[in-house]
């Protein structure tokens, strides 16, 4: 196709202007413009481990979560299911251990759960989008769509996900009728109690930690929320930060 240099430059220039103009329009104008710039809600959790470790052997958060969500109790560790559990310091924060941390935190494991990362590797690898990142920050699970390939389990660097190797129902001690169980063949994990958040309630674990109030949950996008104030005023650690997953569960370790 024969084109003069003048005509070519004119077409290119106008196209470049059009693209730039559209980008500017989206940034300032448009309904998505303002909202896309900063999401109104970003759920996050801060765990004050000093408060948590005061009560030795406490598993209130774990018991509450597992009861409300019908998480089975399976003795065989190869088949166990856990949404929130405890890890010793070395497993929770491998990059931060010193020669003395084992002694310092002997018998004092930390509560760990799904970190609902900003950049979740599990979401990236899920072939069916049975797990996906919600706009408010939650990494959600859709058990209708999960095919049980366990790619997400391979991708998660924190071990937050559990696979139902066996039918969970025989291993349930009492069923909470309001929440479904899962079936054999799907992967499950903490969902930050999406169903409770929809009703305006705090997650079950946060509510269960009544005495120590070690678990603080809230909206990180709101500068006045408890979590915002805590992360902006205290030194916090996150699990395996060097991996680039950007976890949103912060630990105050004292």
């Amino acid at each position, binding site marked *: 196709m024969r084109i003069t240099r003048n005509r070519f430059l004119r077409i290119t220039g106008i196209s470049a202007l059009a693209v730039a103009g559209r980008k500017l329009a989206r940034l300032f104008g448009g309904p998505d413009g303002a909202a896309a710039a900063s999401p109104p809600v970003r759920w996050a959790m801060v765990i004050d481990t000093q408060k948590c470790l005061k009560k030795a052997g406490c598993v209130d958060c774990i018991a509450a979560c597992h009861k409300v969500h019908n998480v089975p109790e399976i003795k065989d560790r190869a088949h166990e299911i856990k949404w929130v559990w405890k890890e010793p310091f070395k497993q929770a924060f491998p990059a931060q251990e010193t020669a003395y941390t084992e002694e310092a935190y002997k018998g004092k494991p930390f509560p760990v759960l799904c970190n609902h990362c900003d950049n979740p590797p599990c979401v990236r690898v899920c072939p069916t989008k049975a797990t*996906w990142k*919600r706009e408010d920050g939650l990494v*959600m699970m*859709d*058990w*209708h769509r999960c095919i049980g390939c366990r790619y997400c389990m391979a991708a998660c660097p924190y071990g937050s996900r559990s696979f139902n190797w066996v039918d969970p129902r025989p291993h349930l001690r*009492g*069923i909470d*009728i*309001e929440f*479904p*169980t*899962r*079936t054999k063949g799907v992967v499950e994990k903490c969902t930050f109690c*999406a*169903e409770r958040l*929809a009703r305006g309630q705090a997650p079950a674990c946060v509510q269960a930690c009544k005495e120590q109030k070690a678990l603080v949950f809230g909206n990180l996008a709101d500068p006045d929320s408890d979590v915002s104030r805590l992360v902006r005023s205290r030194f916090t650690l996150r699990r395996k930060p060097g991996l680039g997953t950007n976890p949103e569960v912060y630990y105050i370790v004292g």
Partner: protein
Amino acid sequence: MRDRPLILGGLIVFLALVTFPVWYNAAAGTSSRPPQLKLPAGQKECVAPVAFMKTSHMQLLIDWREGAVRNNVRTFTAYNGKTYNVSLTNTCLDCHGVQARAGQADFCGRCHDYAGVTPKCWNCHNDRAPESSKQ
């Protein structure tokens, strides 16, 4: 002409076999009536008109599922203006289970068994049948 008894006999046997479903069901009392569903005692209205539910409850449930799980839409405004919580166990089975003093087997299961379909709802979603609900 020799074969006439054989042919007639064969014909009678054939007719008997071909009409077997009709006379067997009539004789044995297992009829081909549509299944009787156990309806709730108090409520007269469902979340949608009965005619709609008969034809499209599957679509409604899928819409509820996608809405609740994937889009966090957990309330449903019905045709009569009432709002319902989007939940199979807590809304549908509240009437069709608890208030009917039955479970999914006496409502959902009746038609599904008759039609020979096995939707896999109840592997995960909890039934509200009186004997099966343990607290």
